[in-house]
């Protein structure tokens, strides 16, 4: 929870990754952030199609002095820009999502996807190399066989650690529309990929076919009223997955019911408050992210202004609703004009499902403590980046007289947005992505 022994929990700055200068190269814009299942590895994907993996190195294992640092472990180019000549379309190399597979052996595996193609990457370590070949010199040149007078067995000698990433599978040509989600099944054999209108089920070993399990494309595209915005498998029930829509609904599907899960098992929807009706009601109710809780009993959705927690057993309304930045409701017209209203914020749970986190503008991010009904606004900025510096809670002044240290809505920088955040699966370590920097914060050591 956010409350520590002394009261509210405090977060402090740990590290920041990425370029310092203000001139952001578009390729460096971070587009996804994901911890692996142990939290030892932290992966980011960017608009340029690159994946960077950081590895945690623990400096001091003993609590409460527990300190760790994430350092670059591997960097590789996952996707390249492609051109679909038939449709005269360029396919962006931007990494939309990364999902880790649970570790089965020494190597690590992750799925990364752009708009059209999913790839399975194997990340493995090499810390030994062979030495003492009979037919080759050390530099690789072949020896003249006539000069060989004796034979020896080559040996493996230690070398500097080398981390290699190699693409093991490429899952292509299954999506006409833009892929927005991938999710690994708890069976560790299958995964789903979702685009605007369809969801496909894959086997991790098989790349030349996938099964379509959801298809909401109408026979006549003129009748299109909603698209799929996110999808995720249940963390424990391998037959269950959910998908969210642009209309603010979430459908839970059971793959045992039928091959094509067009009929949902459950439909989660909250009726709209008519007093809030505006030109932009449809836009702000569109769900940008859906995440199951770790315990599998709840799911969280993010729409433009709020985070909602749903009990899987109650379809007609969420059990909790948190306002992320309600002060933006009166600014929707401007946010529509500058396209910010289309920003897709993600959300995440902490390890024990007691706190949820999501991003906002001005490099602010928000945490909601479900148990204690407390929330806090923090900022990821270079100004607050001294080692172990405690983050001061921020407050936005919606109207009226602005207090000291408050920031008025009109001063918010809407170019500085935090769309992607991730929480370590066990510890209070969070990764927060600003446009091109990755901030890592830890809870304060007493």
């Amino acid at each position, binding site marked *: 929870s956010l409350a520590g022994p002394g009261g509210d929990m405090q977060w402090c700055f740990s590290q920041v990754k990425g370029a310092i200068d203000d001139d952001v190269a578009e390729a460096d814009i971070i587009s996804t952030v994901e911890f692996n299942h142990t939290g030892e590895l932290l992966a980011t994907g960017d608009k340029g199609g690159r994946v960077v993996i950081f590895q945690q190195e623990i400096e001091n294992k003993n609590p409460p002095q527990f300190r760790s640092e994430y350092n670059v472990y591997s960097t590789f180019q996952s996707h390249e820009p492609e051109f679909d000549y*038939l449709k*005269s379309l360029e396919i*962006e190399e931007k990494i939309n999502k990364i999902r880790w597979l649970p570790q089965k052996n020494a190597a690590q595996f992750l799925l990364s996807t752009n708009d059209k193609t999913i790839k399975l990457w194997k990340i493995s370590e090499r810390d030994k190399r062979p030495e003492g070949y009979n037919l080759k010199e050390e530099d690789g040149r072949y020896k003249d066989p006539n000069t060989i007078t004796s034979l020896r067995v080559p040996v493996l000698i230690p070398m500097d650690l080398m981390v290699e990433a190699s693409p093991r599978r490429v899952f292509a040509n299954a999506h006409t529309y*833009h892929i927005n989600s991938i999710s690994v099944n708890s069976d560790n054999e299958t995964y789903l990929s979702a685009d605007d209108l369809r969801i496909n089920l894959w086997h991790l070993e098989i790349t030349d076919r996938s099964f379509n399990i959801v298809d909401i494309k109408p026979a006549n*595209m*003129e009748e299109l009223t909603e698209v799929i915005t996110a999808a995720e498998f249940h963390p424990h029930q391998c037959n269950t997955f959910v998908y969210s829509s642009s209309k603010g609904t979430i459908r839970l599907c059971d793959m045992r019911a039928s091959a094509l899960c067009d009929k949902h098992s459950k439909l989660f929807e909250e009726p709209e408050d008519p007093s809030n009706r505006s030109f932009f009601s449809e836009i702000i109710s569109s769900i940008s992210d859906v995440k199951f809780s770790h315990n599998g009993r709840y799911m969280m959705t993010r729409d433009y202004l709020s985070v909602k927690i749903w009990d899987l057993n109650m379809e007609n309304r969420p059990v909790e609703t948190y306002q992320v930045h309600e002060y933006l409701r009166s600014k929707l017209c401007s946010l*529509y004009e500058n396209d910010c209203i289309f920003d897709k914020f993600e959300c995440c749970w902490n390890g024990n499902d007691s706190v949820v986190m999501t991003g906002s503008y001005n490099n602010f991010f928000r945490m909601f403590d479900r148990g204690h009904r407390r929330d806090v606004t923090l900022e990821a900025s270079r100004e607050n980046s001294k080692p172990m510096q405690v983050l001061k809670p921020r407050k936005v002044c919606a109207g009226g007289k602005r207090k000291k240290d408050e920031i008025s809505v009109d001063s918010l920088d809407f170019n500085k947005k935090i769309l992607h955040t991730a929480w370590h699966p066990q510890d209070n370590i969070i990764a927060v992505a600003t446009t091109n920097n990755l901030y890592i914060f830890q809870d304060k050591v007493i």
Partner: protein
Amino acid sequence: AQNTFGEMMECAFDAQNLISISLRKIQSSRTQRGGIKLHKNLLVTYVLRNARQFYMSKNLSQTQRTHQYEDVAAVREKQEYLELTGSFKELADDFYCNFTGVESDTWHCGAHQPNDQPAEVAHQDASACAMVSPSDSDLMVSEACWSCVDKSSWELPIPNTQTNQKTVLDLDTHVVTTVTNGYFHSDCCAQPKQPQGAQCYAKKRKMDTSYHIVDPEFYLPDFGPVPCKRMRTDDESNLDSDQLDSSNISNLISVLGSGGLSEFVSWQQTDLEQIFATQTICLKHTLLTGSGWTRAIEAF
């Protein structure tokens, strides 16, 4: 909720503004890298629909205070020509929608019909008409025009705001006008644009009114994400002509011939047409005429 008239007027202006902003977004989305984003464009059409509905309701309350069947000229004088703000340079197409609420397989052309009977002409997919690029003859589509038909042949049903509403965005004059029209005409005028004193029967288009964000599965290969309106330099024209080869053109012909033009812009229920009593506007789309088509081919 708007309580005061002032607030309503403000909102009406906002609605107008929103319509133009939305159109611009849709247009610019076509030239975006990565292809058209279905989700975003769908959301934009909802804003368009909401803005239109508000605009309609506001204008309806206005017209209820005036006579229903007034002289066209008088109405035009009263008509607010709302200038849209912002730059229209990026708007390549003449967006208009024919929202009738009723699907019709045939066109009813009221123009030039001595017996006052609407003539039925072969169905053309209404969505084709939405694709016009007024300033660039290199592109397939052509300008919209206003023309008039003999008043005697004009009959207008009692305006029904639910079905005959048009806001037409004229890219040449940069004017949005709200007109009442039972139908509009895609092929009734061979003469150039004559916006003054115009009234004519317009064909009732088939309600192909979906906003098609260029469904990728029915993509025309050679048109890509829709040509951009801005004046093309020689370099650009050359580039495009390289992209268009004879096989692409024959694909295009077959698609156009079969009427399968749904991949071009047409509006879903979120259309922009508002029709006010007594005023009719005909929209010419030379695309659908033989001459327009020929021009399109010749451009390549």
